[in-house]
């Protein structure tokens, strides 16, 4: 019970901060839309390259990536907030006041999820407004959202682990750069078989590739390897949960 009340308080505060401050709200909302526009609009002719086979079109192909990217960056942006809280001293006071410290991490994770829910709702409206096609009966689309929820949790827990260890805004690049690399070393622009050279090797072993390819199969209405994709995302979330909780211990020990 104490866990939930702490989580609720932290989440409410975080969401209040984000939704009442344009400079915090807009990047999280606009960046995914911008990437969606830049990729789906600017690179649509890639769908005409030999071997590109995605009947729903390049907009749908990119939508799956941008949904996952928005989920992951929703977690990253929340991590910036955690770093800011600890740099300003608020985090320290929170540790003194909260009867259950794990609730702090849970609260940030809930805030991250709520924040992303708004982003993905906007993204979905825009995607359908510009004529995105979805295969099957459309229900599978929720499989993509499900995957994104787990990836959002993994990302916020990764970001929390870094922020709780470093406790400064200078943690920003440390949080962001690995996430950026892991995301973009997946088959972002073309399906995996069309990647050639070193990037194909990297993408093959990149866990995000499995999640992304299954996400795209949900949009196509022909889900493939869903178990492996959810297991991969869940494994990342569990690993980063341990990382975040050890980060919390580090923050507690720092006093």
């Amino acid at each position, binding site marked *: 019970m104490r866990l939930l009340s702490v989580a609720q308080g932290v989440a409410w505060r975080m969401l209040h901060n984000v939704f009442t401050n344009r*400079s915090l709200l807009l*990047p999280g909302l*606009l*960046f995914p839309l*911008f*990437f969606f*526009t*830049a990729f789906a*609009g*600017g*690179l*649509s*002719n*890639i769908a*005409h*390259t*030999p*071997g*590109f086979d995605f009947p729903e079109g390049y907009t749908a192909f990119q939508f799956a990536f941008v949904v996952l990217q928005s989920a992951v960056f929703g977690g990253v942006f929340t991590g910036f907030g955690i770093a800011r809280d600890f740099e300003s001293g608020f985090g320290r006071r929170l540790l003194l006041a909260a009867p259950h410290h794990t609730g702090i991490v849970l609260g940030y994770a809930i805030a991250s999820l709520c924040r992303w829910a708004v982003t993905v709702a906007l993204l979905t409206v825009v995607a359908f407004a510009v004529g995105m096609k979805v295969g099957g009966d459309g229900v599978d689309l929720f499989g993509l959202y499900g995957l994104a929820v787990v990836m959002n949790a993994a990302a916020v827990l990764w970001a929390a682990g870094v922020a709780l260890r470093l406790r400064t805004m*200078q943690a920003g*690049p440390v949080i962001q750069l690995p996430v*950026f*690399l892991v995301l*973009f*070393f997946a*088959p*972002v*622009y*073309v399906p995996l078989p*069309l*990647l*050639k*050279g*070193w*990037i*194909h090797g*990297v993408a093959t072993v990149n866990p995000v590739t499995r999640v992304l390819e299954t996400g795209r199969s949900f949009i196509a209405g022909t889900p493939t390897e869903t178990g492996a994709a959810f297991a991969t995302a869940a494994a990342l979330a569990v690993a980063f949960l341990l990382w975040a909780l050890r980060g919390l211990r580090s923050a507690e020990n720092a006093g």
Partner: protein
Amino acid sequence: MRDGLADQVFQLSRRSVVRTARQPANVVGPLVFPLLLLAVNSGGLRAETHLPGFPTRSFFAFALAVPFIQGALFSTMNAGTDLARDIQTGFLNRLSLTPMRPVAVLAGQLGGIVILGLIQAVVYLSVGFAVGVHFASGAAGVVVLLAFSFLVTLGFGALGAFTALRTGSGEAVQGMFPLFFVFLFISSMNIPRNLIGVTWFRDAATINPVSYLIECVRSLVIAGWDGEALALGFSVAAVIVVVSVTLSARALRTRMGR
């Protein structure tokens, strides 16, 4: 003992370079991030070279132009943020009590940024050569490219300085970053304009000046001597330099007069 304007510019340029060099994040970021994006895009978008009409078989050569412009955009942030810090800490106020001439403040700040911009350009060129990119315009093209990098870095650096002088806030300068990112991505950075399939995107890329900056560098790398691309690129860069330097000089006069 040297004195006068040249010495003032030298001292402030040196301070600008040393200050940047002492902040590894400001050196490594502008160098590494564009190269990472180059690596990612050149691997992921290689399939584009199979599109009919694509101007080269090497996507790396095609994309090599982007780091030059992206690095210059980073210099906007560096120039602006450093100058904003000078304003916030009162350094500029103290400087205005000395015989230092306002033009030296601006030239010194921009001198340091341009030097760093040229170092970045040399690194990007070296990476290109190391990966085996054949420079279609030859050695003379490399010299023209460095001159172009000088101009573009000066222009964007002055734009960052203008923002800092107008707002006096490092946060406001940083807030410009997403805007520059939009300009970069809604351009021909990833695909030639004639191969952009979506009409509105092609139109946006056509009116976006960043497209012409990228295409100027790209022409030197993959096409050789393309007079139109060079004329457009140098014209756009010159306009950015004239406008941003004029605006920042005015803003500096206002700021130092307060």
